[in-house]
């Protein structure tokens, strides 16, 4: 299942989410939104708003499910960790 993580480099929950996925050896595509610049950053924020309805992080996308915040239980269920 395809996994995407939208994160901020400053956000403790983003670090926890990444660590959790790393510990479970999950491959995921990481976008650190605050590290982007210009149009790329605007596009990433727009995408996060579109899929999550806000601009709060982390946003973890597992298949077609969007999880806002670090919800370990839900990630575990979806990825069978």
């Amino acid at each position: 299942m395809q996994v995407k993580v939208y994160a901020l480099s400053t956000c403790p929950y983003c670090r926890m989410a990444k660590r959790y996925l790393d510990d479970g050896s999950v491959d995921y595509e990481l976008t650190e939104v605050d590290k982007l610049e210009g149009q790329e950053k605007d596009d990433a924020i727009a995408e996060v708003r579109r899929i999550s309805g806000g601009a709060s992080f982390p946003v973890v996308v597992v298949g077609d499910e969007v999880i806002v915040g670090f919800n370990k239980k839900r990630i575990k269920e979806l990825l069978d960790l």
Partner: protein
Amino acid sequence: MSDGSVRRRFEPGTTIGDLKKYMEPFALRLGYRFNDDEEFVAEVLGAEIEILDETGDVYCPCRVRTGDPKEDIKIVCPCIPFYADEFAKLQKCWCGLFVRTDVRDGSALHGVIEAPTAGQAEVPVALLAEFPPGTLRTVRIGKREIALARIGDEFFALGNVCRHAFGPLGQGFLDGYYAICPWHGWRFDVRDGTTDHPGADVATYPTSVRDGYVFVTV
């Protein structure tokens, strides 16, 4: 400021201790305190100091700055007033830096954040000690303004906007169980929001008091 620059609220070299001291009284008035997990608090405030050095203010490390000042002001820490009902349901701010004062073990909450569920939220709005009998005042829950009244030991919450000319009821005065609008003197019964004028009643909200705080359920 004539040159249009933003006045810095924090001097260069601001420490985690400085931020804690600065934020604590604001948070307490909103019904929140720092998370019990001190290491986690230091991690979040450390991130805020990095952001402060870069931007000049303490923006939330878990939300993104857009560059639009009207939007970005809503994520200056503590951002609790802008998300009062959402955080009341989470029992903490988005980051978990602050937890509600009525949470017993804040460290148990910081590991998980989930989008809050729909439904009502009991939101702390005032310190009991700062709300003596006879007080009528406007409190805010997110975008909502509420007139909060104390009559004896009873608390009443009602819509803040007078239906006559939109005067702020919370800035009016009390006469028995009536809140009197400061603009033209319309009277609203604080117990049920009714007024003498047909179709002009205001909403009322349940209130409760515990642990030194007044709560309104919205």
